[in-house]
């Protein structure tokens, strides 16, 4: 078995979550669940991490941060979206500033459901992700190009907001915004 499945290091990011799932993620580290049994360490450093755990629906201000963290992680890497919000926006889906799920911003490999997700299902999701991680490592070793770059998922918050304006019948607002940007560019 590949060593990477025996030593998956984690970074956890709160993409505008309500903190419910975050607390459950931290609960996995406690003596009750003790994920270090599986060699899992919460690193807090993207350059050491193999698995990115994201909670929350990701808002417009999070987007560059999420991409930054994701791009700083060395391949092979996977993303586990935790909770309903991270899957599709959950109760925040209709909010003006919400991207509506982590997969709008970066590629996601495993979705963990629940509101809030239970520690058992988070551990289950991470363990499912290990299989993906091993596949990715094998693919990289056989010379395939790395598909895991956030650039493939260009989600532009400004154009999204414009789109939102137009969808909501606020074409004027979208026009004003683009004019203001042109002004700023000059």
């Amino acid at each position: 078995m590949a060593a990477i499945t025996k030593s998956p290091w984690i970074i956890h990011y709160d993409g505008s979550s309500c903190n419910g799932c975050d607390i459950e993620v931290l609960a996995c580290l406690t003596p009750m669940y003790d994920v270090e049994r599986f060699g899992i360490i919460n690193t807090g450093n993207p350059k050491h991490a193999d698995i990115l755990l994201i909670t929350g629906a990701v808002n417009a201000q999070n987007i560059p941060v999420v991409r930054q963290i994701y791009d700083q992680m060395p391949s092979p890497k996977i993303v586990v979206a935790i909770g309903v919000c991270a899957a599709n926006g959950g109760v925040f889906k209709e909010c003006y500033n919400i991207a509506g799920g982590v997969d709008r911003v970066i590629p996601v490999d495993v979705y963990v459901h629940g509101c809030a997700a239970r520690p058992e299902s988070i551990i289950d999701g991470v363990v499912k992700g290990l299989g993906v991680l091993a596949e990715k490592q094998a693919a990289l070793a056989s010379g395939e190009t790395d598909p895991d770059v956030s650039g493939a998922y260009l989600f532009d918050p400004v154009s999204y907001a414009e789109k939102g304006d137009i969808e909501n019948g606020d074409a004027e607002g979208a026009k004003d915004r683009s004019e203001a940007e042109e002004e700023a560019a000059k």
Partner: protein
Amino acid sequence: MFVFYGDTISLFQVLSLVLYLVLAPFAGGLIAGIDRKVTARMQGRVGPPIVQPFYDVAKLWKKEPVTVRTGAQDFYVLCCLIFMIIAGSFFFFGFNLLMVIFTLTTASIFLVIAGYSSNSPYAQIGAERELLQMMSYEPMVLLTAVGFFMVNSSFNSATILTSPYLSIQYMPGLFIGLVFVLTIKLRKSPFDLSMSHHAHQELVKGLTTEFSGRTLAQLEISHWYENIMLLGFVFLFFTNGSWLMVIVGIVVVIVVYFVEILIDNVCARMKWQFTLKSAWIITLIFGGGNLFVLYYLRGYLWMASQYQ
């Protein structure tokens, strides 16, 4: 036994050097694994398997290299590993303890430069703290070497190993001082300022924040080599050429390491001011005091021998 540039070299020296080079990474990795297991048990957890550090290094070795300053940083970390191996080799080959300590310092300095060479503020503050830690432990380590010389009339670890004097009898203060600074050297709380094994300190991962993949693996291996050598230093206190003391020495090494793990688990991290002050006070009282006594003891014994 053969002669090399005027020095006689025994087969035992060559054997221990080869054993160190080959076995130290395995022993060091196992100790790190046992460390994590014992730590987990102390915290009421199950803990990772004992071979977990090997999984970690094997994984890191295959990760994508993402160093920002590829040329500089990776080279410095590699130098750190190489000089660490050289320092340990000197020690287990029976060379001069001062040479061992200065080579060890060179290795640590390369690590500090590697931290400084990245643009990350976390790594840079980590590097500064690493320098402060070096300032804290270095005097004590040097005094220990001086103590070994005063007792055994030689700086060579091979001579100290086989000399009939049991060093701990004459330098208990230096032993206490060395065990104290060993907490800094082994990167245990309350002195794990520059980098921590535990998650989410204020500096992310401190000095190692910008290291990843193979570079981080090299650093980990250099720690394994370093730890074995440091435990060798502890062992050297308990040698007088007899096999009984070899067993006693090994038992003491195990006890010392267990105490370090215990200290790690019952202490919170302190500020660098505390580290520097406490280390220097301990150095002065236990190290300096012990040397002071040794100095007069030697003079007294010399005088006694003149009047016979």
